[in-house]
């Protein structure tokens, strides 16, 4: 009976489809409710759906909306419950990598899709837990988005939301309202927000700012960021009006111009850590590498020597915690209003290592080698302390500790650090005569030494393993290359699994 039917007239219109890629807890549901209400207010037929489940607990999640203008017949359309790759008109990424995920899922197509993304980053756990820099390169997402979408609209909507004391949904809604995405007037969007009746003013503020930003962005797109490391700020190498320091600046200026920024940063750090004389020692150490006239080597030396010399001891921490600039910074960080009072509590857990390190070398060493004294003192010292830096008693305690700076050169810790630095630099200098690239890697390996207590020990352990490998690799043309791989591996995970693997690989051909 079917065969006798004549071909029906098919309506060739496609529904407008919108996919929202969000993270659980970001308020993607609010945005979708707004979109649905907006579309309904324009007399269209709309359907939305989502897959919340446990993804609502911080995981990546997707919402999907389809809509079509009524044909006036009263028929209900059959709308899809999930996005069809290649057939999505608008994709909203509530975070940059979620926009990237949309592309991976094939939801963004060059002939059809407007991709609206907030360019801010909310780092995933896998990116945050690496001991090094585990963050994905945002430039890759921007590049792909430009190529894969019909139009790519990206700016930091999280910042707009925060400035407006609102939520990102409102900013995303503002970007969606920009001309070109949906055929609805701006007023309809604003009316939708007003209808909800909650936090209307703040939402409209964020909406308006995002709308303006989107319009500006459409006129002249801002260039994509190039990697994560673009933000480094190098100080100028210039005199400050202190005779001693200015003499060091004069001297540093004789170094090649390209390394001035790094030397300026390093010099400032070590002088701030100790004094001008310490700055002189710093320049002496850097000079020894500069003589080999390889800028990359000098730059690596300027950076890593400063880090090593300005190690984190009790005196340094106490100094940083008690500065007036820090008190001001905390107020800004926690967004305190002028009429509010802010007190900070520090979480400190001094161990006997730190106590002995801060004592004169002889005394510190004696305690360390006297088990009974050490045990007695440990019971006294070794526990968590909540230091209320804003109260006079605790402030003065830290203040006095910071004042021990003048005795620092005589402490056990300082002596150990200097010995460690010397051995390391000695090695780098020797290697530099034959293999500059390897010497750079030996210097850069210092990056592994960081953190406090156990973390510091683990870092130092990895550093030692790298030094041992450097010795084995020395003389090979690819020594520096392998050292770089070892460093990357050491920073990939805390347990050192990647490092183990790389060492195994190297040992297989050595």
């Amino acid at each position, binding site marked *: 009976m*079917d*065969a006798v039917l*004549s071909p029906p007239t*098919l309506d*060739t219109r*496609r529904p407008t489809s919108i996919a929202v890629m969000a993270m*659980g807890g970001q308020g993607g549901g609010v945005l979708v409710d707004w979109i*649905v209400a907006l579309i309904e207010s324009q007399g269209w037929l709309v*359907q939305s759906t989502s*897959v*919340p*489940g446990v993804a609502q*607990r911080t*995981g*990546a999640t997707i919402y999907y909306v389809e809509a079509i203008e009524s*044909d006036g017949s009263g028929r209900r359309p*059959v709308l899809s*419950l*999930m*996005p*069809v*790759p*290649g*057939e999505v008109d608008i994709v909203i990424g509530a975070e940059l990598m979620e926009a990237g995920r949309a592309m*991976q899922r094939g939801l963004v197509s060059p002939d059809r899709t407007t991709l609206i993304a907030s360019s801010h980053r909310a780092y995933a*756990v896998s990116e945050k*837990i*690496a001991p*090094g*820099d585990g*963050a*994905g390169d945002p430039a*890759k997402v921007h590049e792909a988005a430009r190529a*894969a979408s019909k139009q790519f609209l990206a700016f930091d909507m999280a910042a707009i939301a925060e400035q407006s004391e609102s939520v990102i949904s409102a900013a995303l809604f503002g970007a969606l309202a920009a001309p070109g995405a949906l055929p609805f007037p701006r007023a309809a969007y604003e009316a939708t927000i007003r209808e909800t009746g909650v936090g209307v003013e703040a939402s409209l503020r964020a909406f308006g700012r995002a709308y303006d930003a989107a319009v500006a962005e459409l006129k002249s797109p801002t260039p994509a960021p190039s990697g994560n490391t673009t*933000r*480094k*700020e190098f100080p100028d190498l210039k005199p*400050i009006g202190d005779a001693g*320091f200015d003499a060091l600046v004069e001297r540093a200026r004789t170094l090649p111009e390209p390394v001035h*920024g790094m030397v300026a940063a390093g010099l*400032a750090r070590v002088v701030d850590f100790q004094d001008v004389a310490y700055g002189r020692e710093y320049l002496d150490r850097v000079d020894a590498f500069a003589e080999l006239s390889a800028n990359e080597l000098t730059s690596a030396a300027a*950076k890593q020597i400063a880090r090593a010399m300005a190690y984190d001891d009790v005196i340094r921490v106490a100094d*940083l915690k*008690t500065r*007036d600039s820090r008190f001001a910074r*905390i107020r800004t960080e*926690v967004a*305190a209003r002028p009429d*509010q009072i802010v*007190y900070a*509590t520090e979480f400190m857990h001094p*161990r006997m290592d730190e106590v002995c390190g801060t004592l004169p070398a002889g005394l510190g060493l004696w305690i360390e080698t006297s088990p009974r004294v050490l045990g007695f003192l440990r019971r006294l010292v070794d526990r*968590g302390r909540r230091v209320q*830096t*804003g*109260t006079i008693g605790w*402030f003065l305690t830290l203040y006095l500790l910071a004042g021990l700076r003048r005795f620092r050169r005589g402490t056990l810790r300082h002596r150990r650090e200097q010995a460690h630095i010397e051995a390391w630099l000695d090695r780098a200098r020797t290697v530099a005569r034959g293999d500059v690239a390897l010497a750079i890697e030996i210097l850069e390996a210092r990056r592994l030494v*960081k953190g406090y*207590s*156990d973390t510091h020990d683990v870092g130092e352990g990895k550093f030692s393993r790298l030094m041992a490998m450097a010795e084995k690799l020395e003389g090979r043309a690819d020594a520096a290359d392998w050292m770089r791989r070892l460093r990357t591996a050491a920073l990939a995970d805390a347990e050192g699994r990647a490092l183990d693997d790389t060492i195994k690989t190297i040992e297989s051909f050595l």
Partner: protein
Amino acid sequence: MAERSFAKEVEDLRLGDGQEFHGEGILAITKALLQSGVGYVAGYQGAPISHLMDVLSDAQDILSDLGVHFETSASEATAAATLAASVMYPIRGAVTFKSPVGTNVASDALANLASGGVTGGALIIVGEDYGEGSSIMQERSHAYAMKSQIWLLDPRPDLESIVRAVETGFELSEVSNTPVMLEVRIRACHVRGSFRTKTNQRPAMSVKDALETPRRDTGRVVLPPASYVHEREKIEKRWPAAVTFIKERRLNEFVPGDIGDVGIILQGGMYNGVLRALQGLGLADVWGTSRIPLYVMNVTYPLVPDEVADFCRDKRAVLLVEEGQPDFIEQALAKILRQANIPTPLSGKDLFPMAGEYTAQVMGEAIGAFVRQWIPDMLAPAVRASNAPPALEEKHARALAEVVPPRPPGFCTGCPERPIFAAMKLVERELGPHHVAADIGCHLFAIMPPFNIGTTTMGYGLGPASASAFNVKAAKRSIAVMGDGGFWHNGLTSGIGNAVFNKSDGVVLVVDNHYSAATGGQDLLSSRAANRSRSTRHAIADAVKGMGVNWVRQIDRTYDVGRMRDTLKEALTSNEPGPKVIVAASECMLNRQRRERPLFAKAVKAGQRMVRQRFGVDEDVCTGDHACIRLSGCPSLSVKQTADPLKDDPVAAIDNSCVGCGNCGDVAEAAVLCPSFYRADIIINPTGWDRAVAHMRAAVIGFFQRLRAKRRLRLA
């Protein structure tokens, strides 16, 4: 109080004849129940039907106005057993839970119910959690329908069809004396659409009436010889009655098409996806007009052989769209065709994948393949000669694969379960790794980075039970984790009781966050909040002691990482025989924030002195080793790229979403991490005394700060 309130939406449940209802699938189901004159409703929460329970809970006034009884069941088994009220009495009853996990738990009651049969309509609404975003094993509910002989409805995923399925489902149940299962997929539960309503009906007989005039019939009790009679009755009476009803009432739909020599048979739930795929091929439009005839099975069990045969006869080929495996329907169709001697080729899992969700892409490819195979001339030219380049070039795809991180769900900002697992991590460092039996609930997020704790999950509340085999003398003890939800669901008996009886020496950690948190913050027996309609505040520790456990430790602030660690260590090393039970209790932060935030804001607005706490990191003290993050994973504790040229790696940073739970400070202290964390106490609306003290402190501290600043070189 559940996470999401439907207080406003439930008002729409009062809509009458011919009015338009706009809303989510779950609300539509509720409305359909009331329109059908349901007498009682029960269920157990779990995605995707958590919100159905929340809606019912928020609609209690409307329900009691109509004389409808509603219960939040202790488990899915309880919910299913509730349907016993429809065995002897002509009362319509509905229960709901997540499938197939809930169906697993309920299966004993369901099998008994199905054996004796029902008088009043009995509807089991199962929320299908299959495919994207699912949190459970991937299985079908279909097998349950077949094994116990329960009819299975799989309506088209739009509100009108779902509502119709509820209404006809009750009738089907009554004419065939068989319980009916209504399967709703996750997207359909959350789909927002509209339908025309009818006036709510009071149940013809209420449970109160039944209770006051009890009836019995041993012929309905599952015991020989009645059980043998039941089985014959199922086949001889109930099945034919169901098939007749399905046919007469046209529960399955035939969509005509002009290309009549092929056809597509589909589960109702697949309808929108199939239509969209056909639209992509130029063979259908958005209003449901199709050029290929469709047979839409809104009832997927039992099948109606006549309908199948009629649809397939005279066709050159038929495609079956059946999601999930095993391919029960395909096997059944093949048998129907064979027996009717119809030679039409049947495609199905040869073109579709055997396993996995039928996504838009899968649907498009498989239906496209069928069309290309049988009616290539009917394809739109653009589709036929499609040589569109891939949307994403290879190099970009590779680049994205490198940088886009996986983002699985995890503990929320300030979650009280985070410090429990941070403490377990610290214990692991001292005593080595242990066998950790995990369970279902938010605490299962610990299996992922950064904690990587937990070996197996054997089902809700079965954490301690799944450690049973490890009850032997050894140098280490097993640790079993279970949430408060799982504890009351069955863990008290299956885990604690079992451990006491078998003299287990293992450690059981009960995570008590005051709610059934993972499913949306519903109350349970041990919830602390006063609940108007339920009895709460029954302490877990009391229940555990009552079960015969002697070693019980209650921790009322899980954020105390040091104490948590020491208690765990004690449990792992104590000489006391028998199970060691730790109840780690702190309120779910999502719920706490929702409760406290408005009150806080109100107090601030009223000018009261309030203290807000949040944490921060001193950027210049942080060395970027991220050890703190490896013991946390909190969304508000992240990293940020620093402008300091001497730092190669990003430093830790806490954003303004921090709720000041205290985990960061406690972990830094207990794990001896680093001194870069600080807690800021922000005094809002300070009193005169506050201001005076602050002024005095600032004067003294400022004096010393200026003194040192003067001596310090002004660098940069």
